[in-house]
């Protein structure tokens, strides 16, 4: 699956209020993404940031959520944060470990996955994702990992969550390659095509970044619904390649709690791989 590309310069904003713990932008992003998983039943976990967000959700808002790893694991109970999505800790103590044929054919394509949680290198306003190349396919400026399972996850998971850092290079007017379909050219066309082609997925429903939380409006377009504490609309506009829609009821994301931060810092990412 897609892996966020490039270094992650990560400013540390002040805490949200007096006495509140300080936290990094990455920590806020991971916490916000985890909270979006409340109430979800079966989540397909992507490599990179999705992995830590989903594991945090499992320890907080969604303890009964079943974690599916494309490596062939259902019902993982990782004792430590898996560095890769094929880590031995996702196997020991899982409810089922199966071949990848079975995982993709019967679990994913068969319709058991509620949320597919992906990263992205480029995304457009309709949630279409590129994780393949920057530049021309035949002689790319940057060769990215490619689809992995993202392409079929985007089509077969009931809904798609995305977690990625915002930048003018990643939130673009036009992605260089469509690896995983989102709302195509807009909701109307996307709904027609999904129906005609019998997709199980209803497409992207949330994008969580280091600056805020985006959902998709009735046109199938990203709309900023919440700004993280300390983030500004100017920052958002400076890190996006189109004029973004902003909710009239724009909220502020509640800051990470001490418990959430403790889980990230002590259990999930003690070496700061994702949050440094």
């Amino acid at each position: 699956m897609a892996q966020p590309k490039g270094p992650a310069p990560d400013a540390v904003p002040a805490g949200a209020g007096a006495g509140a713990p300080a936290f990094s932008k990455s920590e806020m992003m991971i916490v916000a993404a985890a909270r979006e998983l409340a109430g979800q039943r079966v989540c397909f976990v992507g490599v990179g940031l999705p992995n830590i967000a989903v594991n945090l959700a499992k320890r907080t808002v969604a303890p009964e959520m079943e974690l599916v790893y494309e490596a062939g694991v259902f019902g993982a109970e990782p004792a430590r944060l898996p560095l890769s999505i094929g880590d031995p800790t996702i196997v020991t103590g899982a409810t089922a470990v199966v071949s990848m044929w079975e995982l993709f054919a019967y679990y994913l394509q068969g319709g058991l996955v509620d949320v597919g949680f992906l990263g992205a290198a480029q995304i457009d306003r309709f949630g279409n994702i590129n994780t393949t190349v920057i530049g021309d396919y035949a002689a790319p400026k940057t060769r990215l990992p490619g689809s992995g399972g993202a392409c079929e996850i985007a089509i077969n998971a009931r809904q798609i969550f995305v977690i990625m850092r915002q930048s003018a290079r990643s939130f673009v007017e036009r992605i260089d390659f469509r690896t995983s379909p989102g709302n195509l050219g807009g909701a109307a066309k996307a709904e027609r095509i999904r129906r005609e082609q019998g997709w199980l997925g209803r497409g992207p429903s949330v994008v969580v970044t280091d600056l805020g939380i985006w959902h998709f409006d009735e046109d199938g377009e990203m709309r900023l619904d919440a700004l993280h504490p300390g983030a500004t609309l100017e920052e958002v506009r400076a890190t996006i390649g189109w004029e973004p829609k902003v909710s009239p009821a724009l909220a502020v994301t509640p800051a990470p709690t001490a418990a959430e931060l403790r889980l990230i810092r002590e259990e999930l990412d003690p070496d700061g791989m994702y949050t440094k």
Partner: protein
Amino acid sequence: MSSKVATMRDAVAELVRDGDTVAIEGFTHLISFAAGHEIIRQRRRDLVLARMTPDLIYDQMVAAGVARRLVFSWLGNPGVGGLNAIRRVTEGANATLELEEYSHFGMVARYAAGAANLPFMPLRSYFETDLPKVNPRIRPIESPYGDGVVYAVPPLRPDVTVIHAQRADASGNTQVWGLLGSQKEAAFAAERVIVVVEELVDEAVVRADPNRTIIPGIIVDAVVVEPWGAHPSYVQGHYDRDNRFYRDWDPISRDAAATEAWLRDWVYDLDGRAAYAEKLGVERLAALRPSGPAPSGVVDYGEYR
């Protein structure tokens, strides 16, 4: 049953030929770095390297010049970054390595079609993506029941598939637990199969738990006993993934000279996996052992006389 046990040197010398399509499979788990290194050491050329996730082993093999083409679905160093040796020959004007690209399910389905001797495998993927545009082997196919179009991928039939496993008997009956990846399909699809194991066991061990067998000896050409043969990848119950190695590879592989030096020190100048393990050192290897046992429990098949 005649023994198929062979040294890695002999197995590669006999079964891997210049120009072959070679699949060293294993998803994170059970990647036969030992076989990859021996292929480098024997200076095979012009290989088509197939693997869902090329990983460090194909980065090393590409750096060593064995490959002409890569058939894959995810090209990266998971959790760390890119595969830098491969990037050097796939980006910009230096794009000399041929790439043939699928999604994970596309690759798995290709192996399954190869294993099942089918001309194609249908799947619900690729709709409204650019992948079929850059890979003409991904083709639409209409259902004969009038209910629409899905995509098809063609069979992938490696000349040689190499898999690593916890154990096999001398005739190649092979058992794996933990992640199964697409090894079974890749092995059944192949013309020739090399199985590398942590442990050679008596046939009776295999026969005591026949549901655990992933491939039968009948499709296996060589059984190579090579403890630590999957390092820096891992073997469930035997050793952990050496994540430090994956991180360390990043700066090495960014530099062509450093990569060449690494290949000299860790591949060309060593005569095999035992020397490699010795060079890694007992301390580093010991630290990779699981933190404790996690026994499966026993089931009873019952004796029926």
